[in-house]
């Protein structure tokens, strides 16, 4: 017989960002017994990321800070005590949700009727030759670091990629007196007048973007639009980035840190996809559709209402007008930042480009496998090709591997490489084995 669960509740909410907190509040108000878990030491998520112990928030009293404290008040009012430093690992085959309690050093089991997964978005980063080098980071990761520490990293930063976040990071660095070397942008919003016009419908966003651009410009950071990075190499202890502009002319830029960013996408990695065996599983916020913070909060509340209905056996539909509105915003932004030219995507990458950084597996190795006469499937790409088999288990490479498979073998059906098997994250054996040891003593 299985041992009884450590925690029993009506609903488990995973993720302490806007969506998760809002969902927990609504579930609680509906009279359910709710557990809210967050992997980090504090709630906040990506947008409301809180400074780590001691550091001061970059801008207390800002609109962002006020919105967050309003959400926290609601949470307190509803009587939810969140569990921090608890990493959700997935749902096991007996329907138990598993949490890695990193402080307690053990895995806890949860028997629940519903799980609302609100784990946010992750950054999309496309492989580029040399991206596996030390010193290459993600722009969003760097932004989080700045939010937590209130400080800029040591060394010069080159920001590369696509989308508004690169400019936001450049503005943050400028604010801290450590402007970036340059921002390399694949798109060119200045040449998309129709999209720019549609932006006018969202004045708040325009004002924010204008402020960021002004700050970046004043700090002397050049915005090289319509350009892309072709390779990164290491030379004399620094990174050397080769940049190609829209006319194919190339130049080289040196930096200590290269921050990459190709947009954000829902984080659905290793998570239970849908309701099964009577356990209601819903996704909410950016992990359902990456539409920004106000949409995430609205979707969190809507997901909670949906869960309450489903648990009482009623039919349910997710309804949140703010989500629809933000979807329009994101569509405009996407056309504004659409890359100037097609660089051929993953299919154009040279063979030596590393695709799976954990195990150092390259584009060439995958190509070789895919061009064999026998049409290998997802399982063989993983098992025999060793793609997505390292510690990240595909978290960072599965999408790219998949994209390259579709590019090389467009005729084949798509092969899903991601997995919904627990543990969603590596977990210490001592934490998994702890309970049994205690029992045996």
């Amino acid at each position, binding site marked *: 017989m299985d041992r009884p669960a450590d925690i029993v509740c009506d609903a488990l909410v995973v993720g302490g960002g806007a969506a998760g907190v809002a969902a927990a509040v609504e579930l609680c108000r509906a009279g359910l017994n709710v557990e809210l878990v967050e992997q980090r030491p504090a709630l906040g998520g990506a947008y409301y990321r809180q400074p780590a112990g001691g550091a001061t928030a970059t801008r207390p009293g800002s609109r962002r800070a006020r919105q967050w404290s309003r959400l926290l008040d609601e949470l307190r009012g509803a009587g939810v005590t969140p569990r921090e430093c608890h990493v959700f690992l997935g749902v096991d085959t007996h329907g138990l949700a598993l949490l890695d309690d990193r402080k307690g050093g053990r895995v806890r089991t949860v028997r629940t009727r519903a799980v609302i997964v609100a784990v946010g978005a992750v950054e999309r980063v496309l492989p580029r030759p040399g991206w596996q080098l030390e010193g290459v980071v993600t722009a969003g990761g760097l932004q989080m670091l700045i939010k937590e520490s209130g400080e800029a990293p040591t060394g010069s930063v080159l920001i590369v990629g696509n989308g508004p976040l690169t400019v936001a990071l450049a503005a943050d660095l400028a604010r801290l007196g450590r402007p970036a070397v340059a921002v390399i942008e694949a798109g060119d919003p200045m040449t998309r007048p129709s999209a720019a016009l549609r932006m006018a419908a969202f004045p708040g966003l325009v004002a924010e973007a204008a402020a960021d651009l002004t700050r970046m410009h004043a700090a002397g950071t050049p915005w090289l639009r319509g350009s892309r990075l072709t390779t990164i190499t290491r030379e004399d202890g620094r990174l050397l980035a080769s940049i190609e502009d829209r006319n194919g002319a190339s130049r080289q830029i040196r930096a200590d840190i290269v921050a990459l960013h190709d947009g954000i996408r829902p984080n659905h990695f290793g998570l239970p996809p849908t309701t099964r065996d009577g356990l209601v599983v819903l996704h909410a916020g950016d992990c359902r559709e990456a539409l920004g913070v106000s949409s995430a909060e609205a979707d969190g509340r809507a997901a909670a209402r949906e869960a309450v209905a489903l648990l009482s056996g009623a039919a349910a539909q997710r309804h949140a007008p703010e989500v629809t509105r933000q979807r329009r915003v994101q569509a405009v932004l996407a056309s504004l930042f659409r890359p100037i030219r097609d660089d051929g995507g993953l299919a154009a990458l040279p063979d030596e480009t590393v695709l799976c950084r954990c195990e150092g597996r390259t584009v060439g190795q995958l190509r070789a496998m895919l061009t064999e006469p*026998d049409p290998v499937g997802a399982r063989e790409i993983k098992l025999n090709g060793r793609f997505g088999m390292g510690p990240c288990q595909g978290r960072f490479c599965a999408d790219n591997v998949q994209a390259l498979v579709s590019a090389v073998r467009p005729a084949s059906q798509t092969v899903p490489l991601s997995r919904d098997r627990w543990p969603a994250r590596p977990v210490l*054996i001592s934490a998994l084995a702890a*309970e049994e040891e205690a029992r045996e003593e």
Partner: protein
Amino acid sequence: MVVVGAGIVGAATCYFLSKRGFRVRLIEAAAPAAAASGAADGAVSVASKRPGPMMTAALAGIALYRQLEQDGLFAGLFKSRPTVMVAENEKEAERLVEHAAALASEGMGLRYFEGGALRRHLPGVAPHVRLAVEVGEEGHAIGYEIVRRLIAASGVTVERGVAVTGLGPKDDGSGATAVRTALGVVEADHVVIAAGGGSAALLGLPHATQPRKGQLVVTERSPALAASLPGSLMSCRYLLSKDAIRVASAETGRRFGLVIDPLRTGQFLIGSTREERDDTGNDHDAVSRLLASAVKLMPALARLRVIRVFAGVRTATRDGLPIVGRMPGFENLLVATGFEGDGICLGPLIGREIARMVAGETTELDLTPFAPGRFELRSLVA
């Protein structure tokens, strides 16, 4: 020739038939190594066997791995290393001594370790371990790697995603067999059913085999810790649990046979359960019990991280012996299934022997104990 199933047994059969110049079609419901052969530990080992046909087969299986490694076919895929059986208490030590005596009587080279010598030889194992017996000249191979190598070497393109739905006589009244698939009827001079857990249903022997699930755990890399083990560590409880196949399962439906296997990559594979079930899910209860016993045996494992868990389904038979040979009454229909926890070790060997049978030669291994005729046969449904 038609071979049904691209697990290790089907792949090996395909390879040895192709090598003899037969034209082979390898028909597979899913993909190569999609079932047990891709979800197994890969002990190529005799250590846990008792004298008898399975021990004889395992010894021949190991010898063939070694030979194919030297010939180049399995180059880089067969890791030669001993199995170290350990006893954690008095009862297990007694059982281990008994077992070792039986192995020794078959001429196997063993080394015994106790006290200080044990600590020096196995610095990573817990102090309470009383006795270790090292069985030399064994090895490890990863099922899906072997399958891939065999299929590539045979030059056959697997017919993927094609399930065989039944068998029947050829239209020409010759008494020969044809296989039915969703894509139509495939006729052949010989049909080999190597469909693992799917075999019995095809042969009209639904009760000849039963599924036995096993859960396994993979850790992150830890080359130094992995190098501290001369080979895989096998808890003696494995033997006791093998003794008690039916007794213990009544209570929990599952048994735990702990094997800690250091892989070439520096990772550890820790397995596995034996559960009378037919699914590939992983549950926290089983995994945490397995890991607790692993940590008890090798405390330093506690600080490694688990990166993956998975499960596979073994195909077991009532008498614990595989089913290999010609189906009585069907001169051109052969079967090879029911390898439970030994198919990685035995797969290549069985493939070679099946090819011999097809070619009308006498087999090198005595296959009579495995003959399909020992089960009550229902006639094949036409």
